[in-house]
């Protein structure tokens, strides 16, 4: 069996995870923002060297290279995508500007509008209309389409989104518009709403399509260049790309809807978490990833991170494709601590990595959480930090917290401690909100913490939330890269179909699933997977009449595409039973006297590929570990001499009872009082309340 390589590009580092049989080799090098593929090739060379191979030989032996990219995210952060135009149904020019009325802060009358991707002058309408049942109410005015193209050409538009009403029911008009645009604007990329997001309602679909058009040229260009480089260097297989849905798929598939890579980085981490959690017997996880600027939270249920397509706002645009749900709070090591009108606040502003917190010694002057951790003794000055890339300095830190303390009426150490309390509370509340919208109670979950700062706060937050166990994987600093390696090739698509559950048209249902099967089958075949390798989950989306949110659930799970015999006369009755079961689980009640309706169907296809093995449990005898040294630190109960352990000294079975600090290469694990950490056979940490 050949190699598999997972690559995840972050703002600062590009992470690599190489799977070789059962063994995982991790590597990290600096990202190269001007041309990110350079950093990728550098890392691959390093991995080849480690294997004692020339790059070409190494790549020739790679079964798969799986890649997570932030190009789409960066395009939206920097708002420097393609000059985009929109063609839509006459009468519906302004949906994307109305945003269904949504504004992000109901109390701030000075809230700025989002930067427009398609200002009104580049939103052009054409007479045409399809109705809810797919019938044509008004035929397409082709001359108007050509006129719209003329106007877009005049404005030098580089990418065109087409979103017509009910195109997801009957795409004929949308397809014809695309043909005309292709004639009138040769070479300009086109995004079709019935392909990008084939479902209602129009704002969601239009917004997603417009953002797709905006990021498509950059994402596709980047991936093409990377494929070229890999090919030239000797890689012969397809490049697989991570999607926000948590699956990977070929570059050829991504090309059709590059929006699917948006927010895929955090998804990789969640998929990695699910894999590790499942291996250790914990199918329900609360995953927390705390880095320099943000605190990302997500939930794994039954060993999976369900991708949901809902009200997902990203960079102030609604993205309606299925995504692994990751909520973000502006709380990280760089979050700035300050006093505003007598109230202590932490974040959301961040010192970032340049200049960074004061203790980085790179000119930062505003105290950040990392500075507070230094004050509390959880981190230490003048020793290796972040894998030895530099060391922290205490210079200026005390004075900064003394200033905060003066405003709050106490000393510097109290100020630092309150900042620690504040950020903790912010994170706990954010977790509660995250799980609330899923109807879960954190008490029933295991926390899995990663990112540079995740393990610093994990146990204390777990305590806050009533969680009894925390996992800290050894690989946590390169978790997203590991995640891309774990993620299976997958295609997750849906079609709209509106019907009361007692009036299901089986033939139509079959037809729509066959469409989805055909699409999935083509891409999987292309990627050289056999039909019997494909796991197909046939899902329905249903709700009670009047409900706005739908619940999706499996009606059937098959190995291999093509067997739709389950779509029989009894499908409607079974669907109602399954839906009611889901509704009971989700909302605690069932409406016996109401007939639910189907709003759409979905086909989730995936192929299982080799993943790193994670061992569970501890076969080695448990033994208390020996502290390397101690220092004065405050772990929530005042300053005390606190034992400090070196991660490299610990072995399977090693136990560390709190209060204690464990220093790992890229992170620090705090064992709070009342907690015990134990290293398992895989070298991962398990923290439990004692």
């Amino acid at each position, binding site marked *: 069996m050949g190699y598999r390589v997972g690559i995840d590009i972050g703002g600062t580092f590009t992470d690599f995870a190489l799977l070789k049989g059962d063994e995982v080799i991790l590597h990290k090098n600096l990202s190269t923002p001007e041309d990110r593929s350079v950093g990728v090739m550098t890392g691959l060379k390093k991995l080849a060297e480690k294997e004692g191979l020339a790059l070409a030989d190494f790549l020739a032996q790679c079964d798969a290279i799986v890649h997570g990219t932030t190009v789409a995210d960066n395009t939206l952060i920097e708002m420097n995508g393609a000059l985009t135009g929109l063609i839509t149904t006459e009468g*519906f020019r302004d949906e994307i500007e109305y945003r*269904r009325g949504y504004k992000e802060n109901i*109390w*701030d009358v*000075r809230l*700025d509008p989002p930067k427009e991707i398609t200002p*009104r002058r580049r939103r052009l309408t054409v007479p045409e209309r399809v109705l*809810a049942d797919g019938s044509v109410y008004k035929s397409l005015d082709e001359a108007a389409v050509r006129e719209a193209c003329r106007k877009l050409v005049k*404005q030098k538009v580089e990418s065109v989104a087409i979103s017509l009403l009910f195109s997801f029911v009957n795409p004929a008009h949308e397809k014809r518009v695309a043909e005309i645009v292709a004639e009138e604007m040769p070479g300009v990329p086109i995004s079709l709403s019935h392909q990008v997001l084939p479902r209602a309602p129009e704002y969601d679909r239009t917004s997603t399509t417009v953002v797709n058009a905006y990021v498509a040229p950059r994402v596709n260009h980047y991936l093409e260049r990377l494929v070229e480089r890999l090919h030239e260097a000797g890689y012969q297989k397809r490049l697989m790309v991570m999607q926000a849905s948590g699956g990977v798929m070929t570059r050829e598939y991504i090309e059709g809807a590059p929006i699917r890579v948006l927010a895929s980085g955090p998804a990789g981490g969640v998929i990695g978490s699910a894999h590790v959690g499942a291996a250790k017997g914990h199918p329900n996880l609360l995953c927390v990833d705390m880095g320099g600027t943000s605190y990302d939270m997500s939930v794994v249920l039954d060993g999976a991170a369900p991708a949901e397509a809902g009200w997902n706002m990203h960079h102030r645009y609604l993205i309606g494709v299925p995504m692994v749900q990751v909520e973000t709070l502006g709380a990280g090591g760089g979050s700035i601590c300050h006093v505003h009108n007598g*109230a202590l606040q932490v974040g959301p502003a961040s010192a970032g990595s340049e200049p960074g917190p004061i203790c980085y010694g790179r000119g930062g002057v505003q105290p950040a959480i990392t500075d507070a951790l230094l004050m509390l003794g959880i981190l230490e000055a003048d020793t290796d930090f972040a894998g030895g890339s530099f060391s922290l300095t205490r210079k200026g830190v005390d004075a900064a917290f003394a200033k905060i303390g003066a405003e709050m009426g106490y000393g510097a150490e109290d100020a630092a401690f309150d900042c620690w309390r504040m950020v903790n509370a912010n994170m706990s509340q954010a977790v509660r909100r995250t799980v609330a919208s899923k109807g879960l109670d954190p008490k029933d979950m295991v926390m899995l913490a990663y990112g540079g700062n995740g393990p610093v706060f994990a146990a204390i937050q777990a305590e806050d939330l009533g969680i009894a166990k925390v996992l800290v994987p050894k690989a946590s600093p390169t978790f997203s890269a590991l995640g891309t390696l774990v993620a299976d090739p997958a295609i997750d698509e849906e079609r709209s179909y509106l019907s009361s559950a007692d009036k299901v048209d089986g033939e139509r249902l079959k037809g729509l699933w066959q469409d989805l099967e055909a699409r999935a089958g083509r891409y999987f075949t292309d990627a050289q997977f056999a039909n019997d390798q494909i796991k197909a989950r046939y899902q329905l989306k249903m709700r009670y009449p009047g409900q706005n949110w739908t619940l999706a659930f499996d009606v059937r799970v098959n190995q291999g595409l093509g067997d739709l015999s389950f779509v029989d006369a009894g499908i409607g009755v079974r669907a109602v039973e399954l839906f009611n079961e889901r509704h009971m689980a989700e909302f605690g009640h069932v409406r016996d006297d109401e007939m639910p309706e189907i709003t759409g169907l979905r086909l989730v296809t995936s192929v299982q590929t080799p993943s790193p093995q994670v061992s569970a449990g501890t076969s080695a005898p448990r033994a208390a570990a020996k502290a390397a040294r101690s220092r004065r630190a405050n772990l929530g109960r005042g300053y005390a001499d606190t034992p400090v352990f070196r991660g490299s000294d610990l072995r399977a079975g090693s136990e560390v009872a709190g209060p204690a600090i464990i220093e790992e290469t890229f992170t620090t694990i705090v064992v709070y009082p009342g907690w015990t950490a134990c290293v398992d056979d895989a070298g991962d940490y398990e923290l439990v309340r004692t």
Partner: protein
Amino acid sequence: MSFELNRRLAARREPLPTSATVDPVTASIIRGAMETVCFEAATHLGRAASSPIINSSNERNASIIDAHGRLAAVAIGTPHLTFVSQLTVRYGLEMFKDFDWGPGDVFLGNDPDYGGGHLPDYNVYAPVFDDNGELILIQALQAHQGDTGGKDPGGFTLEATDIFTEGLAIPCLKLLHRGEKRLDVIRMIERNNRFATFRGDLAAMISAVQLAVRRLEDVIRKWGADAVKATINAEIEQSEKRLREEVSRWKDGTYEADVWIDHDTQGTKDIKVHAACTIQGDQLTVDLTGTDDRPNLVGVWNTYGNTRSYIMVQVAAAIDPGIVKNEGLFNAVEMIVPEGCIAHPPPNKPAALGSFHPACEITEAVCIALSQVVPERATPQVYKIGMPNAVIGFDAKGQMWMDQGVDARSMDSSAVQGIDGWGSSCVGLGNLLLSEAEDLESRFPIINLSREMTTDTGGAGQWRGQPGSLNVKKVLAPTMAMAWMVSSRHPLRGLCGGEDAGGYENRFEVGTPNERRIELSALAQLPAEAVIAYQHGGGGGFGPALLRDPEAVKDDVLDEKVSLQAARDKYGVVLTGSLDDYDLAVDVAATAALREQMGSAKAA
């Protein structure tokens, strides 16, 4: 049910008795926990409810009231609903002994004469006791219901002259006693509603409140009742202090504004709302004396609880948005609302439409008055729409359906200093999600023909109001349509020299010999294929239009938000080139000359 009751309900309440103190950081953590509970409750309701107005439009909000009836914490919803919850609960608290309050109880109130807003706003609330049996908090959850069991579906009756026409009024009713559902009561409430979905909504409200009570019990156990009480006291005190600090920076004086409503529902013209905002040191007084009090007016009565809320909505808009919203805001602002005026009606007046008007004119008047002292935060948090075109029909099974007309559109999105009006409405309504054509057309026999913004309907100004949209729809089956039109003769006002917005207009049976403009109100049977067209008002402008950056005016013309004609006539901007060819350019010299000429004409 009297002015006397209102005085009692609105009176300032004492802090909770406790000798405990809590440091500011702990207080902020406990408050965060309470806000999160509100969020959880509202989220649960939004997910489980079945009527679109709750689960899709998000017209719901959660708040925590303390044992003295003070607003302790809020989350989600709209500001307009947020500030009205506490008076309903205060009435319930008056009945604490008589109604035998205890753990596990859940109450319902919606009565405008007992602290409520209007009948459709159902307030479901439940007490939270500590382990010693002391009442500490009440969790309240308010949501707009699609019907109230009155004369007309939806709860809005144009000609109603009393509350009983509008539906079932509930001062304080126990739905659950010690955790047990009172099925007789619940069935009776369900029976007084036309919609089948109401059952699910009520069940969702109850379960959401119960969830919140459990969470709050955990919070009290974790921190101790005394710490929670001390937190609430400290937070309320802090918010009052913060608001007073802001007010003390405003220039002393009395600032007044008149705002007019076109007419009441029966055609009596020019209903006046007058607000005088007096600033003296750190004290802000809002006085509505001078507001219309003609007893024969119909449909324009805003309950006292609502009036307090709609004043506070604009005060909250004028201050640092970071100030925590709680009872402290009310403690810092004196409100004078004469008994008997349309902002403080005598008992039994209908209340449904009053939550639109004069409620929003009260907000608008406060905004205009305050624009003279805090222009940088002056932008009206209003909906000037009368009653949207509600379309009602019956399906094949005889079940009634209603398209409430809360469609995606732009209305009343005014500019504020430095920022043009944008999006679909003011920020205060930013949590409400509007209906989409593809959802509605899948449910109802309606086609949405158009809903684009109309050029030149945004008020001109140095910062421009967002144009209002024209929503055109066709009914495919015979239906009934209902509307009430205002803000046509008296559209939304511009601020600080900015121009007023374009007004509202409504036409039925467009393109037929029966085409008519709805001047006042309509309750009409529409034949199949009838087209109705609703022009929404735009947002008001801010600052003199002649000061607008000519390049911004050029962009407005390219975007067809402003016409070439208006660029010249309103903004004094002369453009060369052609809109059709996208090569417009500002003629700098000609623009300067025209602006000078217009400026001196204006001065003369």
